[in-house]
């Protein structure tokens, strides 16, 4: 059974600016093929997962305030089923890193990530989380959370507008929709391998 291009209710497939990445994912999944029963189950589960993404409250600076606006009435995250911001990583699906990560925070963030239940996702939100932003050259700032965590979606901006955050959220929904929950492995690289590789590199920053 072939995996189809992901459809989400909020926005048309063609309206997204960057479909190559999703296309390549779909192609990759179709290359191996999947059982019809498992494939149907996958679709059902992914439909549910993509529409109830619970974020972990993790805001270190300005982006967190914009994230609060997302939760308030005007932008209303509940439309995406993502309004249930959890305070414990054990109840959350993804971590949206909002703000600069500094040396002292890095081990804390890693630990929070490890406490998330699988399958888990990371969104790097804002310039600081993407690359260190305006503080990149500082003596104690991590130049992007992808140095210590595997990031799924990047949202640039300082801080990103709520609309941009929704765009990022929808990208994550699409990504989830083309994953194989059963059968295939969601993440090719094992997280332990990622951490081990990182441990060697992280000293350079």
């Amino acid at each position: 059974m072939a995996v189809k291009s992901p459809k989400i209710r909020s926005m048309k497939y063609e309206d997204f600016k960057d479909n190559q990445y999703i296309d390549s994912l779909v192609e990759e999944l179709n290359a191996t093929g999947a059982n019809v029963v498992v494939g149907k189950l996958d679709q059902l589960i992914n439909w549910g997962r993509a529409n109830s993404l619970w974020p972990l409250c993790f805001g270190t600076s300005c982006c967190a305030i914009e994230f609060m606006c997302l939760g308030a009435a005007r932008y209303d995250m509940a439309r995406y089923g993502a309004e249930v911001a959890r305070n414990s990583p054990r109840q959350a699906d993804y971590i949206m890193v909002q703000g600069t990560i500094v040396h002292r925070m890095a081990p804390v963030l890693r630990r929070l990530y490890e406490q998330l239940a699988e399958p888990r996702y990371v969104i790097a939100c804002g310039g600081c989380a993407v690359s260190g932003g305006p503080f990149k050259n500082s003596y104690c700032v991590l130049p992007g959370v992808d140095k210590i965590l595997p990031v799924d979606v990047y949202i640039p901006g300082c801080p990103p507008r709520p609309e941009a955050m929704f765009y990022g959220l929808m990208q994550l929904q699409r990504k989830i929709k083309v994953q194989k929950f059963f059968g295939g492995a969601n993440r090719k690289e094992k997280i332990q391998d990622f951490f081990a590789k990182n441990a060697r590199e992280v000293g350079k920053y």
Partner: protein
Amino acid sequence: MANIQDIIGKICPSATFEQGQTLLVNVPAQDWRKLAVALKQNSDLDFDVLSALIGMDWKETLGVIYYFTSTSRNWEMLSVKVEVADREKPMIHTVSDLWKVANFQEREVYDFYGIEFIEHPDMRRFFLRNDWVGYPLRKDYDADPAVNPIRMEDEENEDDTYSLKVQPDGSVRKVKGKVFDADDYVVNIGPQHPSTHGVMRFRAALDGETVKKVDVVSGYIHRGIEKLTEGMTYPQTLHFTDRMDYMSAHMNRHCLCMCIEKAMGIEVPARAQVIRTMMDELMRISSHLLAFGCTSMDMGATTCFFYGFREREKVLDIFEKTCGARMSMNYNVIGGVIADLHEDFVKDVKELCAIMPSRLKEYHKVFSGNIIAKNRMVGVGMLSKEDAINYDITGPSGRGSGWSCDTRKKHPYASYSQVQFDEVLEEGCDSYARYMVRMREIEESVKILEQLVDAIPEGPIRAQVPKIVKLPEGRWYTQVEASRGAFGVYIESKGEKNPYRMHFQSPCFNLVGVMDLTCKGNMIADLIVIGAALDFVIPDIDR
């Protein structure tokens, strides 16, 4: 001024004086203690507020610059410079027993410069990890990432501390101590906690449910802004101020611009002054609305969060139209503002002013008069006026203790001298008083906006500024009233394109300093309420 010089000269004959923006007293380190006691206790001097404490590295010497304010003498300021030549083991006598606010500030200086303070009760690092190597703000700091790589192992809890005690024979001895007693029951709150308003971490020692002591662990968002500014030109440094206390972005940037303008002798056009004032007040409204929403949400009143944000979006719309961004507006520039007002500005501000009074009534109906809210806040987190002054708690929190400390009134800047408004004071000294000051300040801000909105003068929005901004040699300190208190900027220039030292004196830094005092004796659940009512913003503390 001559009067002060005479008095200080009598107390401390070795002191020398430098005229500048404020009078600067040079004191040798060994005589500093004598002068400090006199500054605080001598009724002719009576400098009861320590406004800023700035660590310095002058390459050959290290030292500290103090800025004192005297509330009894019309908010007159005095600065004192203390230098030590020993770079290996620099030591200066503490003033944390005289001005309690110095406790954390001296720890900051120790963290950045390695200057140890004699008789300081608790000499630990404040922002950086306790296994950090070197002192980052020293000019000869080795920034090689190999020295301080990102350490992914968890940090040890810092339970050991020490203080330097003067022995009877005059020598100094290191005395080890513990942060908590051996049988204390310590609960950790943060850094990832929804109600600490960011990534603040508290360690609270409990006796049953009662808080015995709160240890503040900061630095989870310390980004090293002050060091970064030293490598940048003045216009480049501006954007950092928007990202420190993002809820008073306009005020912070206003302050830095004002400091640079003062140093360069630039006259800001009247139109820009009025625009700046209006933007500051809009920012204050937006900040207090957020504070209202969060304070109430921390107590479980989620509805108020939606109410507060509903009006806040209106303010953000005004910002967005004129500045092009909802947050981190980057609007003030040296000499004025970057862009002219949007054509809808006047209309939008009038609309906001028209709806605010009725909305405030609604808030009071929903939350302020609520019996649960009152039970949670009245009499909780007491901070007396004396303590507020001693800990330099300015802004709504200080005024909730009845201390008249509004910089807009004491050192009027921009257009504040032309408008009529009242300084909001509450005598409750508790969390409820702080909360009420915020709510009433929204009314005052609306009043200021109403007066200015029809009187925006025509003319240029920016003064002529040289392409390359160079400050003459000297030092300047400027304060503005940010949403959470007096925000100060200190610039020391050697006549170059980039600052030799730029220091941001943030109000929230002092606010977190009273957490121990205000929480002591209250329930652990009240710690969150007290923190919410003090309303600190963590990136402003950590910078």
